[in-house]
């Protein structure tokens, strides 16, 4: 949990260097996507301080328990982000690629719908809360 920007590449390199014995490292980075009309000024991410940290810790622990992982990383920003900024990142390290991929998808599905973050798009015409996609809730049913 951090307000500051992060460098996804530097995080990936450091994570991978520490993951002794890993044969497979998967990363997912979420970026602030522009609106369909291309007029995004900023994305504001509200969160629930205290619960957020608990939720991220619990989601990471659940991934480590469910999959054969060497390590897992979860980074999520809050506050005001510019278009194209990285919002969050997960990375997983495992001996084999199937575990690394599945764990990264699991972490993302849970972060989307079970961690207390709310995104708001800011454009010249005002602020609009992002509506969750039906697929995001459906994706959780896989696990």
């Amino acid at each position, binding site marked *: 949990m951090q307000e500051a920007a992060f460098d996804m590449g530097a995080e990936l390199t450091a994570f991978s260097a520490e993951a002794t014995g890993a044969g497979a490292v998967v990363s997912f980075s979420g970026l602030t996507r522009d609106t369909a009309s291309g007029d995004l000024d900023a994305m504001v991410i*509200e969160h*629930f301080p205290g619960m957020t940290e608990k939720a991220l810790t619990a989601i990471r622990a659940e991934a480590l328990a469910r999959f054969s992982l060497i390590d897992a990383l979860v980074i999520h920003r809050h506050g005001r982000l510019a278009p194209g900024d990285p919002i*969050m990142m997960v990375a997983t390290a495992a001996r084999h690629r199937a575990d690394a991929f599945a764990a990264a998808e699991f972490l993302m599905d849970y*972060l989307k719908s*079970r*961690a207390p*973050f*709310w995104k708001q798009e800011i454009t010249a015409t005002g602020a609009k809360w992002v509506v*969750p996609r039906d697929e995001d809730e459906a994706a959780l049913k896989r696990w």
Partner: protein
Amino acid sequence: MMEIRYFAWLRERIGTGHEVVETKAATVGDLITELKARSEAHAYALSDLGAVRAAVDQTLVGFDAPLRGAREVALFPPMTGG
């Protein structure tokens, strides 16, 4: 005494992110019914319960979750992280 927290558009519609209420509600659902009676803003914000999620003491719960021993209830829209 119960601490109530609101987030995102629930916070905006109710007009505050935090209030303290007297309640003997047994469950989150009962508490929401009481909160809706507090003002028109509360009633409007909480009118569509399909769009409301709850956490008791920072753990996600369903509306049937008991409030016995709880210190804080948070109400908010579906989360949009990631």
